[in-house]
């Protein structure tokens, strides 16, 4: 009990440092708990959702009727009651009205009882699909009724059968968001397939079997059994976890970003904990020396301080946990409706626990070094004024290695991907090293700067005063500000990519295969002002005389390759969203040969520069062109773009089709579609409204959530920055007193200190901005694989705010001192 009193009294004496330390711990906790808990519950929800998105646990797909071996295996497993199965057949067919006056290519899906095992097929009547889809009946998409002028209750001929339209389907769970179809959906019952008689030799049908496992724990075993029985060439066995889904990939990036914020916060908190703790223990050195003088053993002292730290950490952790849990409660409201087929977010205790443990490990790690230094304090230190021991020795470096290793492990654990994790860690260490080098260089220059003004001279001198630790302060500030700026940079880039890709004027109706002689008539029929893009199909034969290795090209996993057929176009001007990246103009007037302007995306596939020669083959005829310029797109929006642009004269006679895209109100689409198809039957009209709307909606919600977390991360970062400054600058108060003793006025001291802090803040801000641009560039281009735009105007504001913040928080500790009389402070100091 007396021990506890001693600890409490001890903490109370240096309570401002203790509070700052506790603050760092709790802020780290809040973010980690909130981010971890949230990403964990989103992940769980998504997996549940993925099941609904596939309507099953396991999906078997093939382009041929399933092989006998697999059919038998499914039957066996079903009779053993370990699974339930439901076959699905999908194909196109021309459906005809019973009167014979209309026909429409339709996307037929034959399903049986049980479909869907998960999720729900939404019908206009609100009934369940299984109730409605009886033999002899069909359920159709609303656009089919519109296009054929039919109503529910009418009949439709499919194949050799005439079936009654029983309902309208509004949404099916397993239709991917990125699904594209040439015709509207018609659901038929598998019981009618024989009557319809469209599946036979030569038919083009997608065969699938949806499978639900009786026991979720059996999933992997069932998948293995089915995979072993399946034909490896024709048949694919997917689970809801592995099935490709656009939404899943979408969310993966999102979760990745949240984890990134979690790690950044951990790093920030580590810095905060380290600096505050060092400062805290520095203040205790005299106490420790006294304790040692009166006979306390090193062990006693260490136990004492570990207990003190534990006590403060526990308070910090407690506060952090409560706030973190509160944040968990707020988040679901933030993202309500974000996830399709919402299942609802539950509080994820594992995520919270994970965050908690991560936080504890972080505190322990960063606290070790300052604690370890306590050993070196000798009783004689009571009399010393300059008691700075230079860091060094095996334990010091060992600790750094351990911190490095543990940090790497944590990053890998959070990011789950080895390559990006290692890249992340390497970059982080690289940047810290770079900061140290830069700081050193700049300080060297500043030291030699001849300065006339007294205040400025004093301020600069202040930077190099012994015990001032200017360099570590700048490094720490730069690191933490760089983290804050990077979070901001990544967020703006992600936001641009997510949300601005779907501007309100993004085209939703695409017209493909317009023939050149139809363009004028088509334009009149469409009646919308739009740009037409001629498309010339071609392949690349060689670049600078080297033939394209098609086998190698096609093995590329990511992105595009040069082996495919490209859509060339011709025009003599740049599009609104294009700029020239290299070269003076789109085409050169001083060249007489055939020229081509290349989009910078192509450079990712093959290193190309101005003047290089590409040989294309346009349907049998080779064409050599010289690269005149390299273009880039200013926005990654859904607008049409072309890799290769030629001059009009070069390609205007080449075989071509014309393409255009427009934005129209949803209500007008059916009308336009009907009018165009009737007049120009060869033109395909592709309606992307639903896909775009859904994606745009999700991106906007996602962007809001990301913004929330970013704001949170930045706030934490700034608070930790301020606390670091507070902690390190506290020691400077003594100097204020000396200035006053020497006759300086408060205003003078204030100006010198202000200027000194301004230099530190400005320097850190600038360095941090440079580093953060590089860091966000790496994250955006290497990890998210999207185009990067640096922070520009906002960058200056951020540097200014950061500098101001550092200056103010640096001045705060001196404020109280300056208001007191010097003698009071000196008396306090001597009492120590």
């Amino acid at each position: 009990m007396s021990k506890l009193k001693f600890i409490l009294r001890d903490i109370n004496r240096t309570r401002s440092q203790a509070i700052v330390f506790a603050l760092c711990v709790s802020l780290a906790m809040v973010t980690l708990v909130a981010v971890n808990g949230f990403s964990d519950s989103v992940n769980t929800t998504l997996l549940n959702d993925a099941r609904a998105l596939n309507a099953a646990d396991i999906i078997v797909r093939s382009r041929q009727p399933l092989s006998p071996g697999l059919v038998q295996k499914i039957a066996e497993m079903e009779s053993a009651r370990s699974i339930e199965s439901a076959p699905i057949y999908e194909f196109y067919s021309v459906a005809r009205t019973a009167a014979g006056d209309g026909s429409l290519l339709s996307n037929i899906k034959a399903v049986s009882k049980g479909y869907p095992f998960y999720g729900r097929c939404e019908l206009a009547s609100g009934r369940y699909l299984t109730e409605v889809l009886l033999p002899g009946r069909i359920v159709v998409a609303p656009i089919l009724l519109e296009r054929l002028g039919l109503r529910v209750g009418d009949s439709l001929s499919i194949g050799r059968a005439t079936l009654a339209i029983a309902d309208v389907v509004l949404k099916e769970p397993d239709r991917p968001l990125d699904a594209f179809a040439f015709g509207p959906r018609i659901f038929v019952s598998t019981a009618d397939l024989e009557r319809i008689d469209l599946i036979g030799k030569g038919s083009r049908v997608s065969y699938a079997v949806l499978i639900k496992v009786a026991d979720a724990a059996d999933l992997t075993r069932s998948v293995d059994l089915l995979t072993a029985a399946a034909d490896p060439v024709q048949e694919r066995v997917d689970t809801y976890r592995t099935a490709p889904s656009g939404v899943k990939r979408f969310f993966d990036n999102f979760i990745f970003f949240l984890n990134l914020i979690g790690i950044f916060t951990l790093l920030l908190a580590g810095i905060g904990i380290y600096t505050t703790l060092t400062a805290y223990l520095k203040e205790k050195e005299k106490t420790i020396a006294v304790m040692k003088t009166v006979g306390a053993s090193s062990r006693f002292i260490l136990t004492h301080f570990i207990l003190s730290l534990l006590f403060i950490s526990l308070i910090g952790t407690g506060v952090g946990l409560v706030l973190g849990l509160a944040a968990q409660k707020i988040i679901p409201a933030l993202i309500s409706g974000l996830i399709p087929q919402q299942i609802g977010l539950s509080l994820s205790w594992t995520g919270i626990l994970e965050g908690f443990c991560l936080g504890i490990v972080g505190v322990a790690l960063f606290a070790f070094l300052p604690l370890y230094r306590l050993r070196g304090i000798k009783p004689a230190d009571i009399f010393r004024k300059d008691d700075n021991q230079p860091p060094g020795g095996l334990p010091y470096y060992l600790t750094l290695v351990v911190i490095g290793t543990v940090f790497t492990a944590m990053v890998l654990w959070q990011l789950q991907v080895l390559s990006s994790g290692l890249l992340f860690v390497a970059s982080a260490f690289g940047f810290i090293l770079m900061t140290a080098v830069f700081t050193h260089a700049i300080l060297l220059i500043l030291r030699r700067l001849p300065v006339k003004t007294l205040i400025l001279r004093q301020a600069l001198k202040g930077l190099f005063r012994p015990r001032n630790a200017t360099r570590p302060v700048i490094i720490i500030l730069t690191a933490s500000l760089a983290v804050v700026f990077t979070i901001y940079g990544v967020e703006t880039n992600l936001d641009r990519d997510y949300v601005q890709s779907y501007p309100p004027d993004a085209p939703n109706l695409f017209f493909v295969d317009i023939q050149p002689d139809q363009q004028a008539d088509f334009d009149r029929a469409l009646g919308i002002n739009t740009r037409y893009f001629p498309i010339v199909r071609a392949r690349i034969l060689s670049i600078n005389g080297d033939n394209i290795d098609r086998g190698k090209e096609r093995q590329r996993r990511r992105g595009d390759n040069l082996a495919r057929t490209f859509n060339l176009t011709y025009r003599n001007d740049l599009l609104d969203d294009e700029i020239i990246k290299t070269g003076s103009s789109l085409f050169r007037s001083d060249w007489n040969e055939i020229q081509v302007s290349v989009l910078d995306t192509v450079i990712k596939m093959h290193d190309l520069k101005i003047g290089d020669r590409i040989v294309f083959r346009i349907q049998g005829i080779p064409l050599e062109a010289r690269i005149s310029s390299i273009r880039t797109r200013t926005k990654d929006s859904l607008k049409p773009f072309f890799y290769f642009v030629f001059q009009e004269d070069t390609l205007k006679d080449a075989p071509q089709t014309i393409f255009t895209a427009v934005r129209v109100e949803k209500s007008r689409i059916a009308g336009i579609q009907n009018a165009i198809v009737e007049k120009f039957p060869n033109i395909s009209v592709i309606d992307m409204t639903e896909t775009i709307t859904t994606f745009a909606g999700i991106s906007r919600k996602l962007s809001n959530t990301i913004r929330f977390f970013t704001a949170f991360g930045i706030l934490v970062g700034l608070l930790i920055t301020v606390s670091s400054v507070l902690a390190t600058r506290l020691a400077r108060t003594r100097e204020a007193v000396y200035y006053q003793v020497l006759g300086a006025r408060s205003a003078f001291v204030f100006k010198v200190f202000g200027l000194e802090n301004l230099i530190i803040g400005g320097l850190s801000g600038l360095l941090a901005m440079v580093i953060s641009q590089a860091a966000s560039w790496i994250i955006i281009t290497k990890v998210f694989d999207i185009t990067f735009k640096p922070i520009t105007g906002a960058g200056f504001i951020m540097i200014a705010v950061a500098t101001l913040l550092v200056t103010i928080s640096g001045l705060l500790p001196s404020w109280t001192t300056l208001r007191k009389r010097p003698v009071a402070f000196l008396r306090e100091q001597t009492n120590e």
Partner: protein
Amino acid sequence: MNKAILHVVICSCLILAACGQEEPPSAPPEIQSTGTIVAMGDSLTEGLGVSEEETYPALLQKALRDKGYGYRVVNAGISGETSSGARSRMDWVLRMKPDIIILETGVNDGLRGLDPELIRRNIREMVDAFTAEGIDVVLAGMKIVPNLGPAYSEMFADVYTDVGGDNDVILIPFFLEGVAGVPKMNQPDGIHPTADGYARVVEHIFPYVTAAIARHQEQSR
């Protein structure tokens, strides 16, 4: 990413097909070309999913040379092309000054359920324009996948028998005879032949091509 997916979707809408292998075919030097055959068509001609040497135009050229016909066969296939697209690039094909054109088109119209009347008009126009230039036309007859429905399939098949019924045209009744619907002759997508499938195609169409050559030589004499 989201956007990337959409781009892919849109691209696949636009392209309707992706890749195929090709290298410029190199002719054995000892054979003198005695004419040009242009194989005009869609992905079945371009050879989607097989390498250049395995496409039917390449195999046909080889088969012709083996039998002593020194003809060059140019692959002018475009994946995803409809008969309307083919019609609008007639002039381009004529630039190659072909002696014979093997015209294989219409399946992409059929897969989109387009009106067979449109296919008929387009093919008729092309055949007329080519024959007017003194080119011999081999028309590849097509059938549409039966799942589009019996009425449609019938109308579709009629297009080729109608246009091919003219004396000016040599009609291959069904281009994919012995290949369509045979799983091992087709790629997993079920409609594009494998290398074996194309070998079978060439075997099947060879007599029609040599008939066209004979006719062409007779006419030019």
